[in-house]
């Protein structure tokens, strides 16, 4: 089985769908001839032809609107928004149109679109190339939001997203493109080559939306994470010496509530980790759900490890980025409780 980094795995997913489905097409800023600023669409135009993978005007609203219209016609467009920070100009199209089309038309029209976008920090991108906007999508009824953490999942989830008949926001943790970054920025960068999840099968397979993965089994506490934070959490767990169970949510809508509740029911302690700023972040929802469903099992307050409530500050990347140290400290605190 070939070993791939995340960029290659995503490229393989797109290549597979372009080959299999004549109604699948790709467009976005710089994705055509050039292959995308993160190279995810590299070679696709050359391989599948110009009208299957082409450049779009710098207009995120226009990109999503166009994709919705194509979806309503019967195509299955996959669009790239160059950075998740730049989805915001298209927010109305996503919320008022893509997410609501099926419901409001009583199923006469729908928008089977996939919106791929690199997100998250760790690359010294500063305020507008580092944000994690997943919470605002999760709140929108009618949108799905998927976040892979490794090459195997990336390919399988992306194929599932494209085949899904509802609009899917597919957030790619850009810091993971080239390796399983665990937040230890002062150590040499790890490569996917040595990682089990870098074995990516040829051809089509899916990782279903709405099923979380238990990355590490444990008895003492539950850690909920997604994207880059899966690897950070793993490092934090190792540092803490606590036998924590780590769950990679993989998609936050649909959310695999069962796996979460089962785990916290068992451990009685929970730490939630995300990069996005804390207040109003998706951790709040997770905390509320766990509290509602596992209240009588909880031995200690649920902890949230998250970005601070400030814009993403360029020079302070490593002061801001929630690293293993903060995860380990939160784990230590939840173990004290009770």
């Amino acid at each position, binding site marked *: 089985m070939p070993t791939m980094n995340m960029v290659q795995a995503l490229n393989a997913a797109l290549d597979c769908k372009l080959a299999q489905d004549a109604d699948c097409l790709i467009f976005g800023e710089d994705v055509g001839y050039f292959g995308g600023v993160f190279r995810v669409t590299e070679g696709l135009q050359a391989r599948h032809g110009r009208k299957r993978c082409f450049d779009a005007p710098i207009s995120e*609203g226009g990109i999503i609107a166009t994709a919705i219209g194509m979806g309503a016609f019967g195509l299955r467009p996959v669009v790239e928004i160059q950075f998740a920070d730049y989805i915001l100009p298209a927010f109305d199209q996503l919320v008022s149109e893509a997410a609501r089309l099926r419901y*409001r038309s009583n199923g006469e029209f729908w928008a089977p679109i996939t919106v791929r976008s690199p997100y998250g920090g760790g690359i010294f991108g500063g305020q507008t190339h580092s944000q994690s906007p997943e919470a605002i999508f999760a709140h929108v009824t009618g949108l799905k939001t998927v976040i892979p953490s490794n090459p195997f999942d990336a390919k399988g989830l992306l194929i599932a997203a494209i085949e899904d008949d509802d609009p899917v926001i597919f957030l790619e943790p850009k810091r993971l493109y080239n390796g399983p970054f665990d937040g230890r920025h002062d150590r040499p960068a790890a490569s996917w080559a040595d990682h089990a999840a870098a074995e990516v099968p040829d051809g089509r397979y899916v990782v279903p939306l709405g099923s979380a993965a238990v990355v590490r089994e444990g008895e003492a506490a539950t850690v909920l994470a997604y994207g880059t934070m899966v690897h950070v959490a793993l490092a934090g767990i190792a540092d803490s010496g606590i036998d924590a169970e780590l769950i990679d949510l993989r998609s936050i809508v649909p959310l695999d509530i069962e796996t979460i509740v089962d785990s916290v029911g068992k451990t009685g302690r929970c730490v939630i980790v995300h990069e996005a700023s804390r207040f109003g972040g998706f951790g709040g929802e997770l905390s509320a759900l766990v509290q509602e469903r596992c209240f009588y099992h909880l031995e200690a307050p649920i902890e949230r490890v998250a970005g601070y409530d400030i814009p993403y500050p360029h020079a302070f990347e490593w002061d801001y980025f929630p690293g293993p140290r903060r995860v380990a400290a939160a784990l230590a605190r939840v173990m004290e409780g009770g």
Partner: protein
Amino acid sequence: MVTTIALHLHIPEPVSRPGTEADFSWVEVPAAGSVRRPEPTAADEDTRDLPYTLIRVLDEDGRAQGPWTPRLTGDQLHQGLRAMMLTRVFDDRLFRAHRQGKTSFYMKSTGEEAIGAAPSLALDPHDMCFPTYRVLSWLMARGYPLENLVNQIFSNAKDPLKGRQLPVLYSARDYGFYSLSGNVGSRFGHAVGWSMASAYRGDTRIALGYIGEGSTAEGDFHEALTFASVYRAPVILCVTNNQWAISSYAGIAGAEATTFAARAVAYGIPGLRVDGNDFLAVWAAIEWAAARARGNCGPTLIELFTYRAAGHSTSDDPTRYRPADEAARWPLGDPIERLKTHLVARGDWDDERHAALARTLDEEVRTAVRQGEAVGTLGKSKPPAREMFEGVFASPDWRVLEQLRESGL
């Protein structure tokens, strides 16, 4: 050269307000038939005068004049007249239904019936229209069942959209009518995408998008035109300039500075400015743009110059912001009257037949309304409430299933 006078903020203001007389002396009305008609394959450079005139076919006596005269059969004209009259009757009746508490909301398209009816008949059944809330006449021209309309307006158990959407925000796929929403402008780009998909597939279907002149100020308008122009999308993009956007006159959207058809020049595509109360002119412009689109010559922007004769909606009282006599003084007349006069001039119609048709349509609408009342009006009947939990996704997730249970519905 640099003067240092104080700057001054200009706020556009209409010529007349309540308490004064309506004044339309600023409207230039070229004679019917006086505007040249380039070939539909013309290059954009050869169309740059068209945004600054007004394409008109019907003259004061109802005769069709000049190169834009479409070749229409009597049948087509009768269908158009019927659709427009039916729209008018239906609007009046359902507007009154709101006063009687039978619906939560209604919007009329009085005076603008030609702009939906002509394109609906001029385009192919499989083309798709991306409507505004003011083109009911599109559906009327295609024979959409009146009961469906009434049932949605009454939000009753037979509402075809199952109570999920406001009255008047219809969806009718089989009638080439895309799903409406409350947001203005946000479907304009869908028309472009839909037509690009058709081109991608090597199909022959084209799309038509409508937007109000007020709503052209949204970024969506520009983004749609940019995509249409860049990819030469087979789409017709229409701006309905009915002079008003709720209480704001067209000057607040830019009409003081130039025409809405002139927006086309920015994108290197033709912009036609058309008498929107002239059924034949609208038909001709749509036919021209459709030929262009079907011939892979790309998009056209059409300004349909008309007047919103009624209030914005049942929530609106236009006498608060415009002279009471404005509608009466509108210089381009009434689209129904004008088409009627044309048919009469053709020797294909007379007052009696007109009155008879009016009676028939009135009865049709009455019947449909009665049917709707029998099912139930607002609050008296509605689809099963549990249905509100359906259709969020293609298949429901645990949240709505749990909440359905929790709700006890």
